[in-house]
């Protein structure tokens, strides 16, 4: 049992989060229980407004939970944030418009005091990784929305955080690029052993990528199903046509449907 696989990186126990708004309290997360182990690839899937972003932001200490306990690397989320435990890819690219693409990717590296040479080298590498080679000198507005989103992924990959929190990173991309980036992400994950939390609206994407799929439902946001994927860790794209894959996708769809019936 002392294997790394049972090493909880993120642990949520009865997590509740209530937003106090002008129109009264909004329960964004209700009784969320979840364990994410080291090296897991966890997808969060669920209808709009079910609290996926809120859960990810809580893990990142961008929101404070109002009940239960949430730990990241056995610390409070805020301590983990200060230890720079994670990289975050936001739902919107959010590049700084006055910095070039390379400048945006360099931003976290500058803040974390990497050397100039190291910064240049890493920028090159992650730009290659997201297929933006040669776009480093462009400003964000000179790139399409999907390219900007890839640049923001590169920005989160540039420094070596063990946890990667990604909020619909591929939502704005076309199918082909999305497939390629999914493959790249899996390779990166296999190579680096990062722990990845990944929000998506796409069932095939969730099933293809994940070792664990978390199905959520709204009002109040809660987890309705957690599926441990039996798929092998090496996954060619055509695994999506296998019977196993289709069976898992079916279970996810059923889970999502059940959530909708509740409403």
């Amino acid at each position, binding site marked *: 049992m002392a294997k790394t696989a049972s090493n909880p990186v993120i642990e949520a126990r009865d997590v509740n989060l209530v937003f106090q708004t002008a129109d009264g309290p909004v329960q964004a997360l209700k009784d969320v229980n979840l364990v994410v182990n080291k090296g897991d690839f966890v997808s969060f899937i669920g209808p709009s407004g079910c609290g996926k972003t809120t859960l990810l932001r809580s893990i990142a200490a*961008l929101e404070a939970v109002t009940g239960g306990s949430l730990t990241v690397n056995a610390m409070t989320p805020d301590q983990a944030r200060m230890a*720079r435990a994670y990289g*975050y890819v*936001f739902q919107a690219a*959010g590049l700084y*418009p006055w910095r*070039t693409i390379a400048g945006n990717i360099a931003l976290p590296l500058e803040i974390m005091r990497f050397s100039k040479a190291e910064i240049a080298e890493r920028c090159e590498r992650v730009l290659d990784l997201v297929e933006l080679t040669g776009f480093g000198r462009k400003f*964000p507005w000179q790139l399409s929305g999907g390219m900007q989103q890839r640049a923001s992924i590169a920005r989160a990959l540039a420094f070596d955080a063990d946890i990667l929190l990604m909020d619909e990173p591929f939502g704005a991309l076309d199918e082909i690029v999305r497939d390629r980036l999914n493959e790249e992400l899996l390779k990166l994950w296999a190579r680096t052993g990062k722990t990845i939390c990944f929000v998506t609206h796409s069932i095939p994407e969730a099933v293809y990528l994940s070792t664990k799929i978390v199905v959520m439902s709204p009002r109040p946001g809660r987890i309705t199903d957690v599926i441990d994927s039996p798929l092998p860790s090496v996954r060619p794209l055509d695994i999506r046509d296998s019977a196993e894959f289709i069976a898992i996708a079916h279970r996810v769809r059923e889970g999502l449907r059940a959530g909708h019936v509740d409403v």
Partner: protein
Amino acid sequence: MSRILPILTVVLAIISIWYGAAVPMNTAWEVDQAARAGVPAPVGMDLVAATLAQDRPVLPAPHQVAAELYKSTFGLKVTSPKSLIYHGWITISATLVGFAIGTSFGILLAVGIVHNRAMDASVMPWAIASQTIPILAIAPMIIVVMNALGVQGLIPKAIISAFLSFFPVLVGMVKGLRSPDAAQFDLMKTYNASAPKVLWALRLPSSVPYLFASLKVGIAASLVGAIVGEMPTGAVAGLGARLLSGSYYGQTVQIWAALMAAAIVAAGLVAIVGAVERATLQRMGYREGAR
């Protein structure tokens, strides 16, 4: 081209109104002079010509002002005490020093305000109050107090300039430093960036367009401050001194020429700030036209 036509139209309109006003305003003096000399007052075109060529008209005609302006800028050595270049430079140097002081002070106060709750609550009311004090009332006091401390010349004028120009910069920069949206701040938070880092890498770059808008107001205010600061100095040098000595001796043409010079200097300074703004924003990747 499309910009020149409207501007020319406005300039032409102003000049014709100006001429139209000069004739009746200067007529009384002509009639007076004629009565004293016991000759009939000129009429028709003679009257018009006479009113536009007086030595000390109530309202000098545009061509008189233009001639005086030309004479006192290009017609004299720049070291001459009548040269507007000489006086203009005295005023501009005080303006620039005051502008630099005021801008730095405004930026520093704004940085303090966005980082410190106590300053946020306390500084703004004082800054606003400072601007409600008539500058004409406070300028002589500054000059006199500084004089008593043995400081004369450029510095007291620059301080009055700074007093007027820090305020627009303060207001613009507070808004600018707060202009990044929540997501942009969140990103910095995920990097656990320190407040100085956030200031340097996020707040300051975001505030640049706001800063330049303020600087344009600020540099014009600086010029006004420098000119006002020259008025109580005993009318020695500077555009303000030219204005004052002109009014002592009823030299209306000189007053108007100095006023014109001040307006040209103001337009020039604002245009320079505008050019620096365009160059800076372009380097920062702001899209042409979109700001």
